[in-house]
Structure formats: structure tokens, C-alpha cells
């Protein structure tokens, strides 16, 4: 082999240093989400947009505030059944699945909830809807207008839905891209809402 001058060698060394650095930096960025997140399928597809056209009261038609101040959340099959008869109303295979596998036996549908907060969180829709007059989209984004259900991923370690940390691996963004405690706190702070721990924790 040829002899290289010391300087050249040093350059080459540092080049390897750079290669190592950028290679692993890339790997770190690319591999982290791969390690961390896993996908879970939704039981079948669902178009919010389609349903929004059918219902009278927008989101409120299927997700409402109960009289005791709690929130009804994802509707049960009984709610679906208020419109859906025994037979499919449309042509989609999705609806077929729904009608035969769930409607027929009133079996609960195992939806994956994008916005599910951990158990220690006390989140109450009532103050946000009634007092804060927030739009649903403020936190849920365009979910209510979506044609189909997005990919649902969860964090293998923390079990959280990926929507909580946000899809950016750096955790950038703010609601609706992200639903971290910091986001709640920021909005509270901005609107002068007190932020004692128990306001959001149980």
C-alpha cells in the first residue's frame, strides 16, 4: 500500500468521523420511530365526512355531553343502530362488515382511539365545549371531516396513541398535531385558566 502523509490520514480519519456521525444521526432519526411505534388496524373503515352529511347536528349527533356533565365519547352500536337498520344502507364492504359482524349481534366495535389520554388524566369535555367554547377541531383537527380513518399507531413502551406525542419524532407541533400535557397547559395559560395539578389529573 501507499504511504500517506500524516495530514492526509488525519483528514481521512475525520472524514470517517463525519461519516459515523451523520450515518448514525440519520439512523437515530429514522430508527427511533420504527423501534417505538407499532400499528394497530381499525376494525373497519369509517368515513366521518360521509356521516357528517347525514346527521343533523354535526359532531354532536354522535358524540354528546351527557346531562351529568360527562361526555359520551365514541358511540356504541346502539347509537349506530338509531340510523342503520338491519340492512346496509350503502354499498361499501366496510358497511357490510359493520352490519354483519357488529350490528347483527350488537357486538361492541373495538375502535382504536387516536386521542386516548392515559388513565391518570382527567379531561372533561364540558368546560371546554361549554365554557371555553372550543371547536372540536381545536384538538381533534380534521378528524371530523376525514374520509377514512388514519393509520393508528401506538407507542410500544408507553402504550400511548402516537397522536399524543405527535407524529413528529421530535415532538414538534401543537394541537391538533399533538396532545401533550404541555399543550393543555399552554392553552390554559394562554386563556388564564388556572393550572392546579388536579384540574387535569385524577
Amino acid at each position, binding site marked *: *500500500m501507499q504511504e*500517506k502523509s500524516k495530514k492526509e*490520514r488525519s483528514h*481521512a*480519519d*475525520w472524514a*470517517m*468521523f*463525519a*461519516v*459515523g*456521525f*451523520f*450515518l*448514525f*444521526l*440519520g*439512523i*437515530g*432519526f429514522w*430508527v*427511533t420511530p420504527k*423501534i*417505538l411505534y407499532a400499528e394497530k388496524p381499525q376494525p373497519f373503515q369509517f368515513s366521518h365526512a360521509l356521516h357528517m352529511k347525514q346527521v343533523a347536528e354535526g359532531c354532536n349527533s354522535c358524540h354528546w355531553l*351527557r346531562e*351529568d356533565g*360527562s361526555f*359520551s*365519547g*365514541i358511540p*356504541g352500536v346502539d347509537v349506530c343502530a338509531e340510523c342503520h337498520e338491519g340492512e346496509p344502507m350503502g354499498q361499501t364492504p366496510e358497511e357490510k362488515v359493520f352490519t354483519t359482524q357488529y350490528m347483527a349481534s350488537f357486538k*361492541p*366495535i*373495538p375502535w382504536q382511539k387516536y386521542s386516548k389520554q*392515559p*388513565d*391518570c388524566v382527567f379531561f372533561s369535555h364540558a368546560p371546554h365545549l361549554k365554557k371555553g367554547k372550543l371547536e372540536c377541531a381545536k384538538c381533534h383537527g380534521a378528524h371530523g371531516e376525514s374520509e377514512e380513518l388514519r393509520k393508528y399507531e401506538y*407507542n410500544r*413502551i*408507553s*402504550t*400511548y396513541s402516537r397522536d399524543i406525542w405527535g407524529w413528529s*419524532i*421530535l*415532538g414538534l407541533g401543537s394541537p391538533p398535531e399533538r396532545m401533550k400535557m404541555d399543550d393543555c397547559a399552554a392553552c390554559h395559560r394562554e386563556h388564564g385558566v388556572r393550572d392546579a395539578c388536579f384540574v387535569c389529573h385524577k
Partner: protein
Amino acid sequence: MEWDRRTFVKFAVGAALGLGASPLAPKLTDDVAIWTQNWSWVPEPADGEVAFANSVNPATGTGVKVRMVANRTKGQRFIRVEGNPDHPLSRGGVTPADATALQLHYSDAYRVRAPQWREPATGAPRRVSWDKALNYVAGELKKLKDQGKEHTVVMLGDDPKTAESELMMRFMASYGSPNLAFTPSAAQTWDLACVLMSGNYDIGFDLEGAEYVVSFGTPLFEGFGAPVATRKALSAWRDNDVKFVQVEPRASVTAGRANTWLACKPGTEGAVALGIASALVKEGAYDKDLASQALGFEDGGDGPGFKALLLNDYTPEKVAAITGVPKDKLLKVAKAFAKAPKALAVCGPDNSGDPGRLYDFMAVLALNMLKGNLGKEGGLLVRQPLPVNPLGEQLKVSAKPRLDGGHEKPLAVTNLAALAEGAVKGDPYKPGAVIIVGSNPLFTGPQANLIREMLDKAPLVVAVTPFMDETAQLADVVLPAKTFLESWGDSGTAYGSPVSAYGIHKPLIAEPGEAKATGDCLLALAKVMGGEVAKALDFDNMEKVLKTKCADMGDFRKLAEKGYWVQEKPLIGKFCFSTSSGRPEFKSSGLEIVLMRMAEKAGNKDFLAGLGIDPKKADLAAMPHYQKPQALAKVDKKYPLLMAGIPSLRTAQASLPASPYMMKVLSDETLAYKNNLVVEINPATAAELGLAEDDGIAIESASGEIKAIVHLFEGAAPGMVFVPMGLGHTAFGEYLKDKGDNFQKAVMVTTDAMSGLPQWGLSPVRVKKAKGAAHV
């Protein structure tokens, strides 16, 4: 270029820095921290729509409100039992047993989920189908009947006031056995006393209406009547500055709550009542109208009257000698009692829950009569009868001799202990089968060891129970019952209540599993038995039973919704004496008749001594007077101490086991570090016995022994050992098993001669040092 060590090191350092600059590390750090916040083994209770329903806890009589949550995917479940604020008696309050009823309901370790049958060959319990279990029991019973031994079948129940108990009575009557016994209770003694002296039963104490109360040895705030309702009275007393006096040997909770505690010798509470009555009469501070009407107050043809008895035998000095209560203290209370416009004397179950002594109860009733309390606000009120219908025609009870020999006793009352004793002795016959419905006598006694012997003797033991309790563990067949939350059932008026109250519970959530409502178990058995029995219990299910029973209580759906029926107004000013004389009787004509009959039977044998009565003072027999309890008589060199129980709402309620949460709130004075039972002994007594705090001891009686460690308590009467009750289970799994020891194991049952009821409040015992664990 070469790839030598230096290059590699540079590359590696670069790689490390690169990875470090990527989000990997911080993100993982954050996520593992979040992981610790969401460990999979920490449950996440499912959320959903909340609903409420009313019910009644038959074990406590408390009107409860049950909170349920319906999760969208996981369905509905109970999450809480709360007080029903609308219930007129319990008014939203609960006992620990109510508040934690769900732990009993849901605990895997407590519940029986399927019928169980013990393989006769191996003795190992097996899970079987209902059919098999019922057919087996019915078959055995039929066999006995075929052998003409139907009267040897024993059935034991807990509470005689429920619809289930009426089914049990109908079952036994139609089947043909007289051996049906329920847990003995003070209600029995009190009803006897009331009927004998006033001709009425169903009489309650108007605690809330009273302005001065003296309680004679009954643990008002530990185990009396409906615990919540009683405590509401305490609350009212405090708000209205009502004073109350507790007469008993121990500085109990009730004594601590009282404004005055009269510490008397054990078993002498009745004498204190007579002492007060005597003072009232002496001062002329009594209801002279009533006295002038009454039978046996003044001396009469048949001998000296009650007045003379009081003034001669129960002077303050004499009473002080009997009871150990100083004369001036006694008189102070008597004066206050005389002075208060609404002063009430209360008696009831004693600290150990035993039924009390008839003459004592009569003494307390007499004191109330002298005060003119009958039918008076703040006095004794007769309850409006519950508007319930019988479940069919009255059936004749078999006339065969009873195992408890009760038919030969003066008042023919059933006596569970005597029944067991008879069964064990095989006198007059051996038990053919024992069926235990909704109770756990093997643990709750009286005198648990005696019951165990009886069951050991019986060829067939059947337990109908929601829990795998001690009795069920021993049974040949176990029929799984439902808890009150998932079944139809009811409860009656509690002891001492001034108004009638009825509770009803219904299935709130259709829980999975094979259990049936207790009543339905009986109905199912009856159906399989067929014949007379099936005819006597001809109902589809318990709901139908209750519909029949409650037909006169208005709309059944609404009643079930509400969960209770309570008498609207107390019957004030509505009291009429229904004795055979139609008058108040200080000398009971009823008793006199009984005694006359006995005298006839006995011929010229002295039957009075057997009743604990000095034949020289035969005229006492029909009057309230102080009779030394049998247990006291049995104290001797061998068993020099008296043992009594310590009741607590924290340890148990009726025959229910304590819940894990109830166990959790037991203090170090009840159950000490490493599950040692703690018993109270007066420091002076302990010194005599050479015992120090935390010493391990064994308490032995003639019937058995229990292990405990010593707690020196100034409030314990000298010469006694006080033992917490309800602990020392050998069933129910890790939360309850082997925690402390069972008071009932050392109990020596005696009998109250006149009423014929068993007594277990005081047992003669001795104490031995044993190895004990440290006490924290």
C-alpha cells in the same frame, strides 16, 4: 485509506455522537418514564356512563344507592355502594359492610360460583351441575322421608324476618321436620318481655325522640339494631344536647360516647335498672296512673307486689352491692332519669350479640312503664305491622320432638345451641341432614365448636350461600347463592326500631355465573323434591315470591325502584295493653300461667330451682328481678376469668365476612402486626396474671381455646378478658384467613333459664401465656 484503530475510534465516536444527537435517547428516556406511569399490572378502570339504583343491604338494613358504570366495550359493572339519602332511617349513612359490599360481591376468593358436591369416596369437593346437586340433595332427603326420618333433618337460617326464611319455614313444615332454627336474637327476648308485661310485641325505642337515655349493657353504637339509624340518633342527641348513660362493664365505644358511664359488674345491668326503678318509686317519681291500673304493682292477694320488691330488695345500697355501681352515681342517674320529661331506658343484644336475659329485659321494660313511656314520644312505641302477605296458607309444623327440646321449655323458644347439643348427643335422635341457608354458623356460633361437632355428625350437610365460608367448606353440597346486588330479596325491621321498615333488593346487573338467589335455590330444591314440598313452595322465582309478599305495598315496580317501605309516622299515643288482664302487668299473668302449667307437669318436684328461682321467693318468678347469669355461677378456680366479646362494625356485620377493606381499617388494638388477635385485659388483672403488654396468650374455656396477644386496657373490667369478635376465619382466602382467632371458639354457651334462649355473652375462661409476636 486504512481502517485502523484510530479510524475506527473516530468513526465510533462520531457514531456515538450522531446517535446522541438524534432523538433516540431522550425519547426513550421519556417513554420509559411514561411506561412507569402505565404499568400493565396497575389496572385502568374502564370508564363509561354512570347510573344509580336503590337497594337494601339485608345484612345491615341500610338503604343503599348502588353506582354502576357502563363501558362501551366492557359492559356494565358496579363501582360503588353508597348510602341512599332518601331512606328515612339510614338517610345516606352507611356501615363499613355496606360501603365495601362490592368487595364481597366481586372477590374471587370469597365467592362460590358454581354448585359443588363432595365425592363421597374421596371426600374431595367437585364442581357439578345444578341438576346433579339438586337431585342429590332431593334424593337424600327423600330417602330420609322414606325412612320416616324426615324430622331428623335440621335447617339453619340467619334472619327469620326475610322472605327466604318464610320459604324455609314452609319447606320444613311441608317436608315434616320441626328442626328449623335461626340465629338467636335479642328481638326474641324483647318480644317475650313485651308480650308478657304489655301484651304487645313489635315494640321499638324512640331513640331520636328521647331527651335522656339509659342503655343497659347494649352496645348502642357498636352492634344495636340498624347501625346507621341508631347513629343518626346519636347525631341528633349531640345536636340537641341529649345526655345518655351507658351501663356496662367495659369502657366501650358506646360508653365512650356516653355522657355518663356506669361501670357495673358483668351481667348485672338488669339490677341497675331495678335500682333506678326503686329510686323512682321511692321518690314517687313514676306514672302513678299506670301503676294504679297495673297488675302486681302494689301488694296483692298473691303476695308482695313489684313496688315492695323494688323498695325492699333493690335499695341503692343493695344494688350497689350487686352491681358495683356506687350508690351516689346510681342515684344521680336515677334523679336525672326522673327529672327528664322524656327519659328512655334501652335494652338489647349484649356486646357479644347474645339475646340477653328475659328478667333483665323485663326490668328495663318495667322501668319504662314506671316512667310512663309506653306509646310516648321518646319512649317505647309499638310498630305498625308491616303490610306483608303470607306466602300461602299457614302450614302445620311437625309435632315431632325437637332436637333442642324446646317444646319442653317454659316458653318453647327455639335454641340453636340446644339444638346442636341435642344433635351432638343424639338426644332424642341423630341429625339426618343439616341444611344451612345463607348463614355461617360454623364461624358465628354460638359456640362454634359445638356447631362443628353437629355438622361432623350429620351424614349430609348442605350449604346455600354466596360465599365459600367455613360452613360451605365443610358441606357435602354447596349451592351458590347470589349477593343482594344481583338478586331479589328483602329485609325486615331491625331490632329496636320505633317504626316498621322493609327493604327490597333486586338484580341490578345480570352478572355472569351460575349462582341463584337464595330463595330461588330453595324454590329449585322444592321443585325437584316435588310433592307436598313443591306444593308449599309453588313459585316460579323469588320475584314472584316478593310480588305476593308485597302485594299490599303499592305498585311493585315502584317499590323495587325505591328499595324500601317505611312506616310513615311513629304510633305516638297509640298504645293499648293487650295482656290477658288488659292491664299493664308488673307481675305477668302470662308467666304465672306458664309456671302453673309447669308446676302441674312437675308434680311436686321443685321445678323453680331449674329456672334459677329460689323456691322461697316463688312470687318473684312472674316479676322482673335480678337473676345471676349462669355463666357467673360457673366461674371457678379452673376458669377464674370471664370472657366477653368486643363488637365492632369494622370486623363483621351479621353473618357476613369482613371485606378486605374492613380488615384494612382494623387497628393495632384489634389485629396486631402479623395478624395476631389482640385482647383487652385490665392492667391490674394482667398484673395478677403476670401478663405484660404484647404477651402472647391462649384463652381457654371448657369448650375450646383461642390464641391472642395481650393489650392492657384501663377500660377493661378487672377479672375479665375482652375479645374482638368476627376474626379468625379459616375460609375466604388470603385477605381474611388466619387473621386473629375466633371468639366463638372459646365461648361456653349457657341458657337463660326462663326464656330458654342461649347465652354466650360471658364465658368462664382461663388465660395461659403462649408465644406471641411483637406488637407494633
